[in-house]
């Protein structure tokens, strides 16, 4: 019998050789001494939790789930997964009302879009903000993104016939933000993909990717959503489509968090789930499609690498895509966490840490003096816009601004 050929443990926690590089790269440990850092919260703490779940330390709630620890680990220990799994398994407290509200993006979105003008007005009122701060614990500095009256899905239905006419198609996972708050990004995706010859299809059914539910420990509900999304994705893949999104966190969650944290198997379709900017870069790089740009398009931009983009290892695709645009003057900055981590930064108790984490990034952005900060994540966008005053856009939106749609279509042989 073969034995001791390989050490196998949950999330590879036994591979840890205690080098502590994860803690060096942890954005939280650098600013919050109450957080023990990924090594202690992860593989070290796991040994104690295996002895007795009572050793669970509530300070694990400070983890952003940015996964920068995993990126830095030389031994492929899934440190972030160990910490999130421990929170899910051992934190027996019921999620607060606030956390449920923040996590239920679909529910809140559906309600809010029905009366968007009122909701938007209300959410901007300072007495409302003060109440949310005091009663719910949603920090008063935060502003919720405005809700739209016409959801992206509704808009897409009007485009169904024209999209169906394309011979090549992709399925688009739009995500909650595009659907309920900012359909313009979705429209940009459709514009650019159409220009290079791809029709855009919605998934049969789509729910929130579940990242907010995972981080707020609404696991059963997250699992249900995940299963539904994967079933829809599977159908799209069977129909010969790649599934793309424009939010790096949604994509990361569906690719990696589903199997690792929710136990939802996606092995057969994982490689078919991608990001629009990666999809486009590969098409362009391989010469399969060409872009024609507006003459005279000029702007100075930088690319901010969202943490989950760093984890996916895809930052290079988006920044390269941006640098392909003639007329773009590119100012590189370091890959740093902005501090918001989705719903994390909305919580009153996390707000100061959130801003302290982002400080270095904000300084670099301000020094860069750019027209646009380009990034693939919407919550990074909110954080950077709030904290620096910069305008933050998705790489696809920048492309939509930069390309000459008609000329591009012609270049790719589309009528």
């Amino acid at each position, binding site marked *: 019998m073969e034995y001791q*050929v390989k050490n196998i443990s949950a999330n590879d926690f036994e591979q840890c*050789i205690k080098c502590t590089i994860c803690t060096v790269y942890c954005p939280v440990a650098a600013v919050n001494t109450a957080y023990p850092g990924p090594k202690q919260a992860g593989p070290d703490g796991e040994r104690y939790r295996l*002895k007795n779940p009572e050793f669970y330390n509530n300070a694990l709630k400070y983890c952003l789930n940015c996964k920068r620890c995993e990126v830095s680990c030389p031994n492929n220990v899934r440190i972030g997964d160990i910490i999130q799994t421990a929170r899910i398994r051992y934190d027996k407290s019921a999620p607060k009302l606030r956390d449920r509200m923040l996590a239920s993006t679909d529910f809140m979105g559906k309600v809010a879009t029905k009366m968007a003008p009122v909701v938007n007005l209300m959410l901007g009122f300072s007495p409302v903000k003060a109440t949310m701060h005091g009663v719910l614990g949603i920090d008063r500095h935060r502003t919720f993104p405005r809700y739209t009256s016409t959801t992206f899905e509704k808009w897409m239905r009007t485009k169904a016939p024209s999209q169906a006419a394309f011979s090549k198609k992709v399925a688009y996972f739009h995500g909650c933000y595009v659907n309920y708050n900012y359909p313009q990004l979705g429209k940009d995706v459709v514009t650019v993909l159409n220009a290079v010859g791809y029709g855009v299809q919605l998934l049969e059914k789509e729910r929130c990717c579940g990242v907010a539910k995972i981080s707020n420990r609404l696991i059963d509900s997250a699992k249900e959503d995940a299963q539904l999304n994967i079933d829809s994705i599977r159908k799209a893949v069977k129909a010969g489509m790649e599934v793309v999104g424009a939010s790096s966190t949604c994509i990361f969650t569906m690719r990696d968090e589903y199997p690792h944290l929710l136990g939802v198997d996606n092995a057969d379709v994982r490689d078919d789930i991608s990001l629009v900017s990666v999809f486009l870069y590969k098409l362009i790089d391989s010469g399969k499609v060409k872009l024609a740009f507006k003459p005279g398009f000029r702007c100075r931009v930088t690319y901010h690498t969202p943490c989950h983009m760093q984890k996916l290892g895809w930052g290079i695709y988006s920044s390269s895509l941006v640098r392909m645009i003639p007329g773009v003057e590119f100012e590189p900055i370091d890959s740093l966490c902005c501090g918001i981590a989705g719903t994390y930064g909305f919580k009153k108790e996390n707000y100061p840490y959130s801003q302290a984490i982002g400080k270095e990034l904000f300084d670099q952005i301000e020094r860069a003096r750019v027209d646009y900060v380009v990034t693939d994540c919407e919550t990074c966008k909110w954080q950077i816009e709030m904290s620096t005053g910069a305008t933050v856009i998705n790489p696809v939106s920048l492309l939509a601004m930069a390309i000459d749609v008609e000329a591009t279509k012609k270049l790719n042989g589309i009528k």
Partner: protein
Amino acid sequence: MTDHIKPPKRYDVVVIGAGATGAGTARDCAMRGLKVLLVERLDFTAGATGRNHGLLHSGARYAVTDGESATECIKENMILRRIAAHCVEETGGLFVTLPEDSLDYQKTFVESCLRAGINAEVIDPAEALRLEPAVNPDIIGAVKVPDGAVDPFRLTTANALAARQNGADILTYHEVVDFIRSGNRICGVVLRDHHTGELTRVECDIVVNAAGIWGQRIVEMAGAKINMFPAKGALLIFGHRVNNVVINRCRKPADADILVPGDTISLIGTTSSRIPYDQIDNMTVTPEEVDVLLREGIKIAPSLAYTRILRAYAGVRPLIASDDDPSGRSISRGIVCLDHAVRDGIEGFVTISGGKLMTYRLMAEWAADMVCKKLGIEGKKCMTAEIPLPGSDSSDSKEAHSRKHHIIDMSTDQRAAEGRHGSLSSEIPTGDVDDALVCECEAVSVGEVNFAIDKLHVNNLINLRRRTRMGMGTCQGGLCACRAAAILGDRLNCQQKALYDLASFVNERWKGMKPVAWGQTLVEAQFTSWLYEGMCGLDRYQNNEQGNKQ
């Protein structure tokens, strides 16, 4: 520190050896009002006490072959749960029958257990799997017994602390090099201080030899002879808890048939092989032993096949020849308490040996009874089974509990320290620097290190490891040893000594890793060597075998 106090030159009793038995004997004698000196050539638990399974035997393992030991075990098991609650983990135990073993044995086993007073309950194999998912799913039988885990380091330290609370003095790193005699009477010992080389004479009425396997030399020094049979037992330590319930194999005791969860790790053991007496200070684990431990261990818990092994170690069972066997070959199973006046005509000298970690308290009771009898002291009842050990004191725990109440959110290290020191953990200093961790794997804080230095006879890093688990975790001292050495260097006012101490500590950790140095354990060792040798140049500070600085 107490170690540095010059002892008064006269005691009622000198106890040689600070293993569980020696510390227990010192405690018992001190509690009976005797003036006691406990001497140890190295450190508490440096011998067999610190090198075993840490199994709180229910006695079931001995039930079939040795009913008397089994009965003693279950009685002491129940006593230890009461008096040493902070050293004991009530895990429960299983005796599982593998397909290759016969279920017939189970019947004999259960009958023998019940005869010995051990509550052995046959359960469905499926129920056993539910109780302990790590158990081999192919088992065909299972019996539930009241096994548990006991931390021999804590247990011994607690006994030593209790002895000290009752007026005993303790000297570690003091070796008995000769006896003071008057005719056929032993009336004292000559001690050599291992650190200074200085010799001290200590007079006493009675010497108790509780030196375990090294006791044969003590007896020879006194001018008599006993036959001891060193039996080496090797064990493997796994990197984390594989099981939370003790798993035994239900068959005639053999190699690698017990898997014990101990604190943050699991232990598989043991082997058993006779070794020559002159090899008792040279314990190394052979590849064959590692192989048999794994091969057999995997049968009771399949996940051992792929769980990281932290280290291997071996201890020596101090088996002793029966006095009633003229050939000297037959081994006594139980406790041996010898009055050398009766046996060899040497007055003032008692040897307590045989037995097991589980019966250390009973052994101590027998030895203390004999001491009292020889001193003509009457009416001093043994109270060691009634009075809890320091750390398991219930009134203390109330205080600790109210303290805990203020800490709504105890951190992992605070909980870990409480687990290690019981109610004494309330004496661990807290605050900014004291809360910082020295050992991250085992969650040992600066405060706990300071507490151990102040209260628990710590002179060097190995002492500190035995008192706190510092350096016992996954990195085997890689990160914590230098931090702890820095604190010790400050506290003991000698950075130079701390450097040599650090080098020998790191080497001692490597000794245990070497027999299992593959996979991540090898990577870990390499990483540690880069840090200490490559970056810090620590290899220049090695002590050679004689302890001389090179």
